[in-house]
C-alpha cells in the first residue's frame, strides 16, 4: 500500500500515502531547526541547575548561582543609595532649618520634595498644594491649622492628624448643638458674631460675643486668631476649610458648632523614610506660606 516514491521536482521522498490522488512530501525538518531545538532543551536543563527552579518539601532548589530577584533588588537599592549619598547624607545629617539655609541643599530638597509630594500628598492637597474646596486645606497660603513653622509641618507629616499613629495630632471640638451644650438661639447668635469676626469688624456687645467668649475663645482665641497647638483654626479671616461653593458662612458655622466635622491626615512616619519627610516639610514650607 505504501509506496515511497522520489518526487521529481524537489528530489525528496514522499510519505507513501495517497489521498484522492494527493501525495505528501516527507521533507525532514531543517537541520538548523533541529539543532536549535536540542540546544534549547540543553539550555533549559542548564537553567534549572544555575537558577532557582523547582519547589521542594522545605523550600526550593536555589540554583548554583544563588540568584534571587529580591536579592538583586536589594543590591540595586544599595547602589542607588550610594549614588544619591552625596546629597542624601547631607539631608540625613541636617535638620530642616539647616537644609533651608544651604542654597544647594534647599534646591535638592525642593526637587525631591516635589516628587514625593506629587505621589503622596497631591491626591488630597492638590498639585502645588492648592487644596480641595470644602475638604482639604491649601498648603500654599499662610493659613495653617497645626502651625506653619518647619518643625510643625514636619511633625504633622510624620504623625498625621487624627491618624492611627499613637503620636498623632488630635483635638476634637465639642458637639455644642448635638450634645445640648448650647441652645439654638445661642448657636445662631455666635454664628452671627463669627461672621462679623471674620470680616474683621466684630459686633462688640452682641449676645453672640458673650457666647463666643464663654465657649469658643478658649481654643479659637478672643480675637479669633485660632491656636495652632490645638489645631483650632483662625476665625478672623475668610478661609473656611469645610465651606463648599454654595454654603453661606453663617450656615457653615451653625453646622460646625452643632455637630463639628473634623479633618484627618494619615501618618507618614512608617511609610516614608526620614529624609523624604524632611524634603517634604521643606517643600511644603516653601510653597508660599511657610512661617
Amino acid at each position: 500500500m505504501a509506496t515511497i516514491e522520489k518526487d521529481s521536482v524537489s528530489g525528496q521522498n514522499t510519505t507513501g500515502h495517497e489521498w484522492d490522488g494527493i501525495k505528501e512530501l516527507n521533507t525532514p525538518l531543517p537541520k538548523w531547526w533541529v539543532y536549535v531545538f536540542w540546544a534549547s532543551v540543553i539550555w533549559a536543563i542548564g537553567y534549572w541547575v544555575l537558577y532557582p527552579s523547582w519547589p521542594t518539601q522545605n523550600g526550593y532548589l536555589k540554583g548554583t548561582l544563588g540568584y534571587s530577584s529580591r536579592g538583586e533588588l536589594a543590591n540595586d537599592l544599595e547602589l542607588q543609595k550610594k549614588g544619591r549619598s552625596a546629597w542624601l547624607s547631607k539631608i540625613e545629617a541636617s535638620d530642616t532649618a539647616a537644609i533651608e539655609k544651604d542654597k544647594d541643599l534647599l534646591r535638592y530638597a525642593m526637587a525631591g520634595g516635589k516628587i514625593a509630594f506629587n505621589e503622596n500628598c497631591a491626591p488630597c492637597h492638590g498639585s502645588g498644594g492648592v487644596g480641595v474646596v470644602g475638604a482639604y486645606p491649601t498648603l500654599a497660603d499662610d493659613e495653617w491649622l497645626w502651625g506653619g513653622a518647619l518643625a510643625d509641618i514636619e511633625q504633622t507629616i510624620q504623625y498625621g492628624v487624627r491618624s492611627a499613629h499613637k503620636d498623632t495630632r488630635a483635638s476634637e471640638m465639642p458637639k455644642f448643638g448635638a450634645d445640648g451644650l448650647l441652645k439654638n438661639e445661642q448657636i445662631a447668635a455666635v454664628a452671627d458674631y463669627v461672621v462679623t469676626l471674620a470680616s474683621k469688624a466684630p459686633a462688640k456687645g452682641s449676645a453672640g460675643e458673650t457666647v463666643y467668649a464663654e465657649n469658643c475663645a478658649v481654643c479659637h482665641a478672643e480675637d479669633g486668631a485660632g491656636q495652632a497647638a490645638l489645631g483650632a483654626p483662625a476665625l478672623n479671616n475668610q478661609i473656611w476649610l469645610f465651606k463648599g461653593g454654595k454654603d453661606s458662612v453663617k450656615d457653615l458655622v451653625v453646622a460646625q458648632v452643632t455637630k463639628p466635622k473634623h479633618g484627618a491626615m494619615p501618618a507618614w512616619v512608617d511609610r516614608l523614610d526620614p529624609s523624604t519627610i524632611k524634603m517634604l516639610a521643606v517643600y511644603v514650607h516653601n510653597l508660599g506660606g511657610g512661617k
Partner: protein
Amino acid sequence: MFKHHAKIETNIFFMAVGILLTIVVGGLVEVIPLFSIESTIEKVDGVRPYTPLELAGRNIYIREGCYNCHSQMIRPFKDEVERYGHYSLAAESKYDHPFQWGSKRTGPDLARVGGKYTDDWQVRHLINPRDVVPGSIMPGYKHLTRPLDYADIATHLTVNRMVGVPYTDAQIASAKKDVEEQVFSDVGSSPAVLASYPKASLGKASIGLSTANPKVVTEMDALVAYLQVLGTMVDFKTVDDKLIRR
C-alpha cells in the same frame, strides 16, 4: 526509533498507550511542583483572613472590575518599590481566592494603598475621582453609596474556609455582627472584631456624605474597609529581608 513509528501510528492500542504516556509525563511535570509550592510562601507574621466587611468589600472590588485597571502586585523593581513601598509577598495574598494581582495598570498599583489616604478621601474619590484628582480618568462609583447586602455574609466565610482560609466557627457565627461592629465602632475603640482581626479599619467611611444614613452599612463602607487594609498586615520592620529573598 523512527522506523517503528509507523507501527504506533497504525495500531490503535500502541497509539492510545503513547498518548496516555505523553499526557502523564506532561501532567506530572505541571502538577507535582504544586504539592510543595506552599513551601515557597514566605513565613511572615500578621497575615490574617479578611474581616467579613473587608471580604464584602473585596467582592465589590471584583464585581466592579477594579482589577481591570489596578494591580495588587508590587514587583521587586527599584522604581516600583520607590513609588509603592515594599514589594508584595506571596504570603500577603495567601488568603485571596482568587488573588487580585492583576496584569495591567491603567491606574496605580493598590497593593499598599491601605492607610495611604483617609476614609474621607477614598469616599470622595470613589464618588467622583475628579473632585480630588483633576486629571483622573477613573469612572465614578456613586452607586456604591447604596446599602450593602450582607445577609449571607457568613456563607462567604464558609466558602472561603472550604478553599483553605482558616476562619474559625466563632468567626463564621459572628460574621454578620462583625460587619456591623466594624462599621459602627469609633476609630480608636477596641471592639471584639479587632481582637479577632487585628488592624481592621474601624468607623463608617461614608459618614461624611450629606446623604448618608448613619445607621446603614453601605457598599462604600465595605469597599473602603477593604482598601484600607491592603498591604498593612505585615509589619516589614519585623521581617528579615534575607529570609524572604526568592
